[in-house]
Structures are given as structure tokens and as C-alpha cells.
């Protein structure tokens, strides 16, 4: 097992809402480990807390409405990021841990050239001179596969296509060779063919640079193709974690089951059944259901689920911690019969 880079324990990020709707507990006790060279997938529907989790790692959550609770713990190579002074934190951001976002158009500053924006990180973190930084920017543009980088380096974001802008974002994030890259739905805003190119690019760069990647997505197809380990999130908690092949072969949490069943398949036998969907909706973060948060939508739920929130239980594959499931079904497997219609 390669070295442990990032340790996250019991991360909790809450938001205070304006209209007095109460506190939104967006991230409510998330824990995971990240090793060098590993790709970790963070999967879930909108509103499950995956983006807030990633923002919390770099403390990019806007402080007035949001705050990371004191019991949380985020450790990068032995240093607790949550207690770092602002200056030290800034030395980590963009340098040892970088992030790319979903919308490349709005995430790039429209009044600066892409070259300037890529070079900026190099100037600030590696103290390169302007000419050297510009050369690095051209290098990076070539690395991410942008044709004719010497001319492109002086282009403005609005002159580039969506796929190219995302490549620029990646170049910007990687210019200082970070150890960890957080990619928040990097392909959601792009066409399917471009999606594939970007994911290939990320995979190639990861091997070349030896980076660890946290890939946030709601698309299980992407997860199957590129991710080593999956964290399934629901209602601010991790509900299942497993290596990718294991997760797809043996999904144990009812939510994961539902997600996988919802993926339309070409080999469904005729006559086709209706598309499966998980009934109900994601609850509001200000009012998580009692007990197990998935129980209102779960086909197997019984009274224990309403009363007690299950901890992350081991799925018993023999390798402790390799497959965790937050579900009482692991304790009482006999209950895995449908109480309610799907």
C-alpha cells in the first residue's frame, strides 16, 4: 500500500441559514483515507454534501454562513489543515493540494489571459520570474494537450471552447505538481466526447505525476471507469465505501443498490421493465430524518432504522475496513426482504 497522504476524520461542516430555517448540517461526520497515486471517487446526488466536503478540505467554505466544527480532523502528510494559520494554508492551496471546479467558464477570470492565470500559481508558490513562469505556462498547456500553446497562452477564456477551458483549469491546478488533486465534477458541464478526453487526460497526468485524485461526481459510469475506491455519500454521511470492483459486484447499502439499479442498461430483457428510480427526494439539510437518514426511502426499513443511526459497519470481506456499509442490514441480514414495493 502506498503512503498515506490525506487523513480525514469526522469532518463536520454546518451552515447557518438566514431565514431561521435552522442549521444545515451539510457534512455530518465524514471520514476517509487517501493514498498516493490513488483515485478516490466521491459519489452522490446533489445535496448530499460531496462538494462541501471537498471545499472543506481546503477551507474554501465561506465562513459567515458555514463553519467547520472543532471536532473535525483533516491531515495532509501529518499536518492538520484545519488549524493552520492562513499564511501556511495558502502555501498548501494550489501547491500541495489543488482543486478544479465544475464550470470552467465562470471559474476562470475573464479579464486575464489563460497564460497569466496559469503562471500566477507558479509565481506565487515557486517564486518564478515572469518569463520563467510564462514558459512554465506554455509547458503546462502542452502537457494538457492544447494545440499551439505558444499562441494560446495569450488567449482569454472566452476565446476558448468548454473542453479547452477545462484543460486550462487542469493546467492551472497542476502547475505546482500538487500531491492531491480535488476534481469537483470536472466533466459535468462538457459534451460526452470531451468528457472522455478530459478523464483520459487526468488519468495520464496522474500516472505521470504520481498524484492522488479525489474525483467528485454523480455519474456512476465515470466511477466505474476511472476510480480505484468509492465513497458513496448520502445526507452528509458516507453510507458505503469499497473498492470499485467490489462496490459494483456487491453493493450492500440500499441506496447504492438503488443507484446502480437506476442506471439504464442495454441488456435488459424484453419486455422492458420501467426505469428504476429511488422513491422520494433527498431531504433538506436542515432536517435530516431521525435514525438512519435513508429510512424514508428505503425498501427494507424497519423500526430500528427509524430509531438508531447505524455506524459504518464492516462488510466482512476478510480485509477489515475495505468495505464499510452504514446499514443495519449488516447486523440483521435476514431483514433483506422487501417490506415495501420498490
Amino acid at each position, binding site marked *: 500500500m502506498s503512503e498515506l497522504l490525506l487523513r480525514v476524520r469526522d469532518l463536520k461542516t454546518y451552515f447557518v441559514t438566514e431565514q431561521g430555517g435552522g442549521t444545515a448540517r451539510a457534512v455530518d461526520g465524514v471520514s476517509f483515507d487517501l493514498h498516493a497515486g490513488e483515485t478516490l471517487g466521491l459519489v452522490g446526488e446533489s445535496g448530499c454534501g460531496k462538494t462541501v466536503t471537498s471545499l472543506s478540505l*481546503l477551507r474554501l467554505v465561506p465562513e459567515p454562513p458555514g463553519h467547520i466544527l472543532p471536532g473535525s480532523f483533516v491531515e495532509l502528510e501529518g499536518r492538520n489543515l484545519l488549524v493552520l494559520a492562513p499564511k501556511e494554508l495558502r502555501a498548501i492551496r494550489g501547491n500541495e493540494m489543488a482543486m478544479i471546479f465544475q464550470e470552467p467558464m465562470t471559474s476562470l477570470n475573464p479579464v486575464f489571459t489563460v497564460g497569466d492565470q496559469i503562471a500566477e500559481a507558479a509565481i506565487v508558490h515557486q517564486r518564478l520570474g515572469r518569463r520563467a513562469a510564462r514558459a512554465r505556462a506554455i509547458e503546462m498547456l502542452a502537457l494538457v494537450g492544447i494545440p499551439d500553446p505558444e499562441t494560446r497562452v495569450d488567449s482569454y477564456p472566452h476565446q476558448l471552447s468548454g473542453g479547452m477551458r477545462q484543460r486550462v483549469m487542469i493546467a492551472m491546478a497542476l502547475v505546482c505538481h500538487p500531491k492531491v488533486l480535488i476534481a469537483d465534477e470536472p466533466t459535468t458541464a462538457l459534451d460526452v466526447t470531451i468528457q472522455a478526453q478530459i478523464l483520459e487526460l487526468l488519468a495520464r497526468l496522474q500516472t505521470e505525476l504520481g498524484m492522488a485524485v479525489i474525483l467528485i461526481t454523480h455519474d456512476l459510469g465515470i466511477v466505474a471507469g476511472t476510480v480505484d475506491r468509492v465513497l458513496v455519500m448520502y445526507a452528509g454521511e458516507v453510507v458505503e465505501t469499497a473498492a470499485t470492483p467490489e462496490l459494483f459486484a456487491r453493493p450492500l447499502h440500499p441506496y447504492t443498490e438503488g443507484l446502480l439499479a437506476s442506471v439504464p442498461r442495454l441488456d435488459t430483457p424484453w419486455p422492458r421493465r420501467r426505469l428504476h428510480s429511488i422513491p422520494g427526494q433527498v431531504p433538506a439539510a436542515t432536517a435530516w430524518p431521525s435514525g438512519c437518514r435513508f429510512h424514508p426511502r428505503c425498501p427494507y426499513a424497519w423500526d430500528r432504522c427509524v430509531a438508531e443511526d447505524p455506524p459504518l459497519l464492516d462488510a466482512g470481506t476478510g480485509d477489515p475496513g475495505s468495505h464499510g456499509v452504514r446499514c443495519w442490514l449488516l447486523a440483521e441480514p435476514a431483514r433483506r426482504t422487501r417490506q415495501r414495493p420498490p
Partner: protein
Amino acid sequence: MAAWLVRRVAASGAIVFAVVTFTFLLLHLAPGEPFLPSGDTPVDPAVVTELRRQFGLDAPLPVQYAKYLVALAHGRLGESFALHRPVAAALADAIPNTLALAGAALALDLLLGLALGVYQAAHARRLPDVGLGYATLFLNSVPTFWLGLLLLLVFAEWLGWFPVGGVVDPVVHASLPWAGRAADRLWHLALPALTLGCVGAAGTARYQRAAVLEVVGQDYVRTARAKGLPERRVLLVHTLRNALLPLVTLFGLSFPFLLTGAVLVESVFAWPGMGKLAADAIFRRDYPIVLAAAIAASVMVVLGNLLADVLYAVADPRIRVHDQ
């Protein structure tokens, strides 16, 4: 870029030409004889006809229009009835004073407005912001000349810190050394410029606050922080650079306000600019001055807009027409 500029300049020229034509039409469509005093004493029709012939007013309209344009091109704007001077000369004396006032007011407007707007945005929704918000709302709603009167009352009458009006001290100015003369001018400029500038700054601050808040919420600011840039750089380079763009538009839009304000403020402070010239001319029915002042004001507005457009194209790369 060059082609765009040429087109813009040509369009500006067309607007000025249209304004000139409009004033001509207005002049000739207005009721009454232009050269007669506004008395009610009836005038002998024969005299009227003779006067019309003398002034060339009996020629057909297109001919008069042509003569008008030619005269304008030569800078001849007519003769002032009341002042018995060429209008062009009277304007030439007055315009620099208005430019000085408007320039000082504009500088105050933009700088103070920018500072206030940014400050408010940085403390959004907290007490300083709310308090300043009401203050700017008030200043943006007061009649400019009334504010001038108040400032005059407090700072010139009661406190005696500033002079009551005029552009220079009538008695002492000529005998002062160079530096003293400059100081005297500034001292007289202070209150009128403050009046116009504060009202303008209030509007600018409100606008700028909204602009900064909008930019601060943008994704690219978050990206800048994610890159580990120092907060000061995030604010000054990334945020401000984008938040300043609306200020360029405001700059262009403020010319009409400044000129309108000039008319009123100059009257309050007896500032001998083109606004006061025009206002005084009205009472004497000295319309050549009024028309000329209106044309001059339009030219300034058009030039201001042109300048603003050019500045905006320089500042925002998305607007620039690329030759690629």
C-alpha cells in the same frame, strides 16, 4: 479595433450634427420673432419686415440652414443680445470654469464613490454598510443645489471656512504670488466641487457596492483562493479588476449629470461657468447663448461617451473586436 473606432467617431459626429440641426429647427419653429424684446408694445409691421430682411430671416429655410452650418463651422455662434459680445467669446470664457468644476467633481465622485462602495461591500450587511447605505441613499436623493445652499450656509456663512462664491477673490487675487493664486482658486473651487462630487459619489458608491458584491460571489474568485493566492491579491487583482468595469460605464454616464448639476450649482455659488451663463441668458431672452451652450454641452456628453466606450474596450477583453 481601428475600424470600430472610426465607426464610433463617425457615429458621434452624426449625433452632434443631429443636435445642431435640432437646435436650428427649434429656433425657427418657436413662436414669436426672435429679435424682438419680450415686451407687449406692438411694433410696426414694416419695421418687423425690415428687421427680418436685415437678419436674413426672410430667406427660405434650407438657405438659412446652410448659412447656419457654415457659420457654425467657422465658430461663429452668433451675437449675444444682452452682452453685446460674440457668443463664442462668452462661451470660451465660461467653459474652462465649468470644466474645472466638473473635473474636480468627477474626480471626487469616482474616488470617493469607489472607496465607499468597496468598503460597503467588504462589510456587507453589517452596521457600517447599513449606515452608509442610508447616507448614500439620502445624498443621492437631495436636490444638488439645495445641498450647495446648505454647505454654503454651514461652511461659508456660519464657519467662514470657505468663500461664499465666485471663482477667485475679487480684491486680493491679482496681487497674490503664483502659489497663492492657485490656492485661492482651489479654495473657491472647494464647496461647489464638494457639492457636485458628494451627490455623484453617493450614486457611484451604491452602484459600485453592487458591482463588487456580484464579483465577489463569482466562481473565479473561489478559484483564485483555491490557488493559494494571498487574500490581498485576490481582492485587489482579481476582484477589483472586474468590479472596476462598471465604473467606466458610470464615468461615461456621469457627464449629463455633471453638466446639469453645473447649471444649478454654478448659480448657487456664482461660479462663472457655462451653466450660469445659460441660466442668466434665459432671463434676458438671450437665446443665442442658450442654444450655443446646449450644443456645447451635447458635444461634451458625446465626447464623454466616446471616451468611456474606448476605455471600456481597453479594460474588458471580451468587448474588444479582435482582428483574428
